[in-house]
């Protein structure tokens, strides 16, 4: 039977496709991808695939035998196990000595260190006084902000520990090695010799067990914000880690800049954005918001204002958690960009923070 456009919803599909054609990756994702590409390491893709395949084909068999206690205790679905408080149902976890073995997607919290985690597939975890040991599997972590001066929360893996001061990150631990992707905040990795490697947002740090305690790090470019298509080899001045922005652009833009002026403004704009990224990496979110607001007032283009406004809203909503301010910001934002690229996310945020 011939199907017409309406039966197939093609009109809606075409309309959606038209909207998607105007979309771009978020600035965070864009930065992350550019940094990964600049690190000239296509390995992360393969790295993600290899353990997945090995896990399912070979290790899965061995693990299922190794992890199965004999006799098998009944799965626990609702109660706390070894201090792990279930935060989502249904969950299936079994005790295995000092550790728990979780199958499937489960959410748990360890209230004492303020650590929340979600497993994917088979994972084995051991609670620690200051965090958790990930013995096997993949898990996402969110750590409550650590009070100033307090010791960091630790996620211990075979080759070291990820020390956290309040952040969001994903850890994969396999027989061959592991990795951590930092989404937000700041962590560092302390290997078995005590050597520390800092990880900043958008970076992945990997370790490989077969070649010993080697930290295999995907390093971002010296200037992750600089335009990657710049033909000039000279990069903008490298930013010292944690440097406070010396001078953000003042809110004054020439009415109609020439090509050279635009280039200068773009460079200044990107440099200022990089400073904002540094502030974010240090967890100095209110300062990052203020810097973004200054940038926003000096941004000549609608696209820049749209992106900056979105970043401000995300900081207010997610990192700072100032719901009234986030609500006001998103309301004004949606008025200014009613059909913007972030419309869907902003609409969702509005419902979340304004309720």
């Amino acid at each position: 039977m011939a199907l017409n456009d309406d039966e197939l919803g093609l009109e809606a599909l075409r309309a959606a496709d038209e909207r998607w054609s105007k979309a771009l990756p978020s600035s965070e994702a864009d930065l992350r991808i550019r940094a990964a590409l600049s690190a000239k390491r296509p390995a992360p893709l393969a790295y993600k695939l290899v353990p997945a395949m090995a896990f399912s084909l070979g290790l899965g068999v061995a693990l299922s035998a190794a992890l199965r206690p004999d006799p098998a205790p009944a799965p626990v679905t609702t109660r706390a196990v070894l201090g792990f408080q279930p935060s989502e149902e249904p969950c299936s976890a079994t005790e295995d000595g000092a550790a728990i073995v979780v199958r499937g997607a489960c959410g748990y919290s360890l209230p004492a260190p303020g650590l929340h985690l979600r497993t994917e597939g088979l994972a084995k975890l051991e609670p620690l006084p200051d965090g958790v040991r990930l013995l096997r599997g993949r898990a996402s972590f969110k750590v409550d902000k650590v009070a100033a001066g307090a010791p960091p929360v630790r996620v211990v893996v075979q080759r070291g520990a990820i020390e956290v001061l309040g952040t969001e990150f994903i850890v994969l631990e396999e027989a061959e090695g592991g990795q951590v992707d930092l989404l937000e905040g700041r962590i560092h990795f302390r290997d078995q010799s005590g050597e520390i490697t800092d990880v900043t947002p958008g970076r992945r740090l990997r370790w490989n067990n077969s070649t010993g305690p080697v930290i295999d790090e995907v390093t971002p470019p010296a200037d992750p914000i600089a335009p990657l298509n710049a033909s000039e080899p000279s990069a903008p001045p490298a930013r010292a880690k944690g440097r406070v922005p010396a001078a953000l652009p003042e809110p004054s833009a020439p009415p109609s800049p020439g090509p050279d002026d635009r280039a200068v403004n773009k460079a200044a704009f990107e440099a200022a954005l990089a400073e904002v990224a540094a502030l974010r990496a240090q967890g100095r979110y209110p300062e990052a918001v203020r810097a973004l607001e200054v940038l926003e007032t000096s941004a000549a283009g609608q696209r820049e204002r749209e992106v900056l406004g979105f970043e401000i809203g995300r900081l207010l909503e997610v990192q700072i958690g100032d719901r009234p301010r986030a609500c006001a910001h998103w309301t004004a934002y949606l008025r200014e960009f009613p059909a913007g690229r972030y419309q869907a996310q902003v609409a969702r945020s509005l419902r979340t923070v304004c309720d």
Partner: protein
Amino acid sequence: MADLRKPEDRLGVKDAVDDVHPNVGPIAASPPDDAARVAEVARLYERHKAEVFRLALRYGAGRRDFAEDVLQDVFFRLFEALGRLEARTDLSRWLYRVTANVSISRIRREKVAAAASLSWLFGRSDRVQETPESLTSAHRELVMAEEILSELPAKERIAFCMHHLDGKELLEIGALIGHSKGYVSKLVARAETRVRKRRQKWR
């Protein structure tokens, strides 16, 4: 001048990188070293990210997280393939094909690990959960499109989009995703049936 080879000959292997096209592509000839490859991929990323992202959003049924992951994977593949691509390669076509295949793999992987949503943890669901009151006409269309696409299995989704949104012929789709014309015809037909049933439920 048209390329007289059959699409299958040019694109028979899913991730083949030898699809020379008469249009002069924007790829620099044989970047000599890693640094040059990095620079070249970075340049191509800036130039082509929008088109790849658009396709990935479509195949991900509007999910930004999916699209961003696909975008990264596609350009990693480009990095790996760059030395083997000819200067005359039609890069847009290459990216079109690789985006489709990367999306198929990712959709399948997600199905296997269906419970692996991180949105629970971070409170981030890029798929908007609309309430009836909040649905404007434009939003309704978007939500409908997302639901239509997310109903479809990986290959059906890609074949359906290529056929109905991009106007690709079945033979060409087969060449792009590595299947015969007959199989693609089945994929599209199955997708149409699913969509029609879904649409009937809404009415």
